[in-house]
């Protein structure tokens, strides 16, 4: 299935305008109410579909990614070649090989999953990492990042990476080539893939395409399942694989997103600061009452001992 690129960008831009027009006030009002609801897939969620059965491990995507994002090739392990050992501050995407003793192999492309409800953005203090309300792309903005690296602790896929050298560090992760998107171009990796093992489009279209492939090839894919449809609350980068997903480094986090599963009670306890304010009122009342006792005691002490009373 081919998705017309023109159609795609039209959808993105009109969607963006509509959201901007709907105004900040209504967004703020519904924002609070939505906090309790299941996070929804953004209206024009962009996505990628990676099919491990198609990938030949040529790493053209890795090179294209480095070029498109203006990164220095990582030659730290091999001075002659761009040979990163893992995602790092020079590498926003990587191809890894999984090999089992029985000879079963699979390549896997690692990059940001652009979660529907990203743990990194939930962790981020001032919104340095933010999910676009329309396209759902999770991007990093150095203006708001304090470099606390909570995103690295929170991300279940170990995606955000930190530049550890120098006094002006950055968080490096796949942002779906945000500069290229702005120019109406596809991300670099999907443009160059010779086998179309990774394709770009709207998440809903890609999901349909993935299901079509599963239906057309019964038994070919692991559990006849698209990883990312529901996993961890859903991701915008979807995976098809012939080997179990956990073997190619995709964890099994359950179908609830991490913020939803683990921050539910935090959000409830702190909603509108009602509970802390109530606690404060009760405590202040009690202490005021006990304070009078204490003051009388201090005065008596001062008279009896002739020494200055201590607060």
């Amino acid at each position: 299935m081919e998705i017309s690129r023109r159609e795609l960008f039209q959808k993105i831009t009109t969607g963006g305008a509509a959201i901007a027009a709907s105004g900040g006030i209504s967004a703020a009002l519904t924002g609070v109410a939505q906090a309790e609801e299941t996070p929804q897939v953004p209206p024009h969620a962009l996505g990628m579909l990676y099919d491990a059965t198609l990938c030949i491990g040529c790493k053209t995507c890795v090179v294209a990614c480095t070029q498109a994002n203006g990164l220095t090739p990582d030659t730290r392990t091999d001075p002659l070649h761009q040979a990163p050992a893992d995602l790092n501050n020079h590498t926003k995407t990587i191809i890894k090989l999984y090999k089992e003793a029985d000879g079963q192999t699979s390549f896997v492309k690692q990059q940001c999953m652009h979660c529907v409800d990203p743990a990194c953005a939930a962790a981020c203090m001032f919104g340095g990492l933010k999910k676009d309300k329309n396209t759902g792309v999770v991007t990093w903005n150095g203006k708001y990042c304090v470099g606390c690296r909570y995103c690295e602790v929170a991300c279940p896929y170990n995606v955000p990476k930190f530049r550890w050298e120098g006094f002006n560090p950055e968080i490096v992760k796949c942002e779906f080539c945000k500069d290229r998107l702005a120019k109406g171009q596809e991300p670099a990796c999907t443009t160059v893939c010779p086998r179309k093992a990774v394709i770009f489009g709207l998440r809903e279209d890609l999901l349909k395409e993935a299901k079509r492939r599963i239906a057309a090839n019964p038994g070919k894919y692991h559990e006849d399942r698209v990883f990312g449809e529901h996993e961890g609350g859903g991701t915008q980068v979807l995976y098809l694989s012939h080997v179990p997903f956990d073997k190619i480094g995709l964890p099994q986090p359950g179908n609830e997103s991490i913020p939803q599963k683990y921050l539910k009670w935090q959000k409830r306890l702190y909603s509108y600061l009602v509970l802390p304010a109530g606690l404060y009122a009760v405590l202040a009342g009690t202490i005021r009452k006990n304070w009078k006792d204490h003051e009388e005691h201090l005065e008596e002490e001062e008279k009896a001992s002739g020494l200055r009373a201590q607060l």
Partner: protein
Amino acid sequence: MKDTWQRDVPVFNVPIWTRPFKFFCGLAGLGMILVVYREIAGLGPASGMTDAYAWGIWKTFNTMVLTGLGSGAFAIGIAAWIFNKKNLHVVMRTAVLTSFLAYAFGLCMLAIDVGRPWNFYWFFVPWHWNYHSPLLEVAVCMTVYASIPLFLENIPPILDFVYDRWPDQRPLVKKLDKVIVAGFPYVVSLAYVLPAMHQSSLGALMLLGGNRVYPLWQTPFLPLLYVWAAAFLGFAFVTTTLLFSSMMWNRALDIDVMAELNRLTMWLVGLWLVFRAIDLTLRGSILAAFRFNIFAALFWIEIAILIYGWSKLREAGNTRSPRTMFYAALLVLVGGMLYRFNPTTTAFQPKAGAFYFPSAIELLVSIGFMSLGIAIFLYAAKVLPILPGSNELARKMEAQQATQPGISGFAAAPRAGQFATGD
């Protein structure tokens, strides 16, 4: 040495520039120099942190564990003011000073640990906050707590010092006393709400670690267990500080007050253990404790230390022996600190094969800030009325001041053969 603690009295008749004090100042100095190196070279060369273990001991130990030790002002304060344990008021100054130091340097470490600290100005722009980020909650609450209520709680000893030292300033001190008295209940209740919030949020930090935190530690009740652990750690830390200071400076102990601290610590630790056992059992995570791996071992070490500490607390409650109290409190400190540290590092598995051990620089900076805290405490205890004593001791100090002005306070000059006894 049975005595009654009636008021706080400086440690007088003791020189300030002692060998341990110089030692801690030296370590602190070394730490500060290495901080300059870290700021220039960046976090990579200075620390053992990696992308997998993105948080090192600066955050996980100095901030997340040591502020637990600095929860004495919070925990003992609640016992004294809310539950009206009147005899605990006398140890509050020890608690608020140690807490202030733990928090101040915990926050310093947080600022040194972040990579782009200049962006902290968003701190002053609340509409840019991500209200649901536990780390934001921690950063905001801790800063406000340390700089307003906890700071103000430390003002009275300084006013006492001014009152004693500059008699012509006494009217001013009395005026300030009145201001403090008027605002006290409102400020102090803030000093209990804020720590309850951020000490629990410190536990919430690791909630977002999801199932990468080993199930023996990962629980929705992590925030509650964290703030609860902070409460008994605060008690235990003040207990050890008081016992150690009394021994070091040869000051009398009020065994009734110590027994009260001991008793409350015992209840806090005991109930915490019961609660944790129930939580682990109901969620079925307890099964993970019987797997043969390093995490199960860590869990049993942690639990064994706390159970042994609890039994020692019980024993100390019966025998009222300061020595047993000291060991009991130390055990509780070690067990509680392990509990607060494990989910952040040793029981946190970001991915297979990842490993973290702090670098020498990381360790020295961490030790440097702890040493700075200890040095300031040693100094403050000799200058300000921080440690509890009797009215008699205070009179003794006044009498000495009358004949030898400047015997307490920073002008105290060591005179040969004069600083053997403090009591």
